[in-house]
């Protein structure tokens, strides 16, 4: 079992990340629809810190050598997926920005006085 101070640290860290996400939403730094992922992730971290037994028995049940390996694997996979979907979103944003720039250029050609 985890030592008590480590558990407290984990809970505090998870709560802190949850608070930071909330703060960013409040300050209009991130859309709610995009923050959902991070809120859920932070909430899961809090739960994992409060009840480490859950993760440990799951890891043991799945046959992992240690719970930390299991947690690392899941977190890395999750983050990789997130980065990939971000990449796709940036691609689509690029395409949209270019599209808009092209349309602005064509519109100005037709109506040069609108500049």
């Amino acid at each position, binding site marked *: 079992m985890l030592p008590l101070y480590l558990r407290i640290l984990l809970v505090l860290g998870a709560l802190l990340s949850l608070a930071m996400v909330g703060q960013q939403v409040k300050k209009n730094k991130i859309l709610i629809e995009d923050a959902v992922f991070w809120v859920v992730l932070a909430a899961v971290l809090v739960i994992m810190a409060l009840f480490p037994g859950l993760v440990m028995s799951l890891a043991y049940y799945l046959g992992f050598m240690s719970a930390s390996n299991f947690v690392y694997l899941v977190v890395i996979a999750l983050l990789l997926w997130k980065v990939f979907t971000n990449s796709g979103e940036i691609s689509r944003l690029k*395409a949209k*920005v*270019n599209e808009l*720039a*092209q349309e*602005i*250029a*064509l519109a*100005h*050609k037709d109506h040069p006085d609108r500049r």
Partner: protein
Amino acid sequence: MRILAIIPAYNEEACLENTVEQLTSACPEIDYLIVNDGSRDATERIIAERHFNGVNLPVNTGLTSAFRLGMKYALRNGYDAAVQFDADGQHLPEYIPIMAHTLSEHSANIVIASRYLDGSAKPTGARGVGQRLITLLIKLTTGCSIADPTGGMRMYNKEMIRLFATSFDAAPEPDMVALIARKYGGVLEIPAKMQERQGGSSYFDIINVLKYMARTCLSILMMRVLK
């Protein structure tokens, strides 16, 4: 046959005037459109002062986007063919009528002005190696022999104008030429010569050549599997 020469221009103040003058004097029957891709130099001023036919992108968006803008213009103004024409004076306008003739004669989709078709010039150096590799890859993945897939002077027919103007991911690059050769066919070449660039600086130093070639080869393979 109405032909539009699309001239993407990014910081091309040094040679744009000469290029356009050569084009209009050699091929007065051809329309052209300069796409100023958010240049920071005098390109926009030159277009305005000389009353060239041009459009100005408000920000720099890259060659692919600038070319797509030209294709949109061609589509909306009902052109039958569009030709990629470099602003730096590398491309010789004399070939445009020959390309147009080949395009309609063989109802081709793309006609490339090919530097290596007649064997008088050989691709050399790092670019030469990459060039041959790309030609080989296109041969293997599509069965088409394209001597000069990286040649930048390409003419497109109406169907290709629509394709480029409307797709999400269509770049005027060898990988797209390979895709078109496989899916639509009708990619032809005519023998041509190119000039040294007349001003400005080339984007292609050795690192960029390697990057470009690696990216293009991978892209050809990916397109073969995915598209």
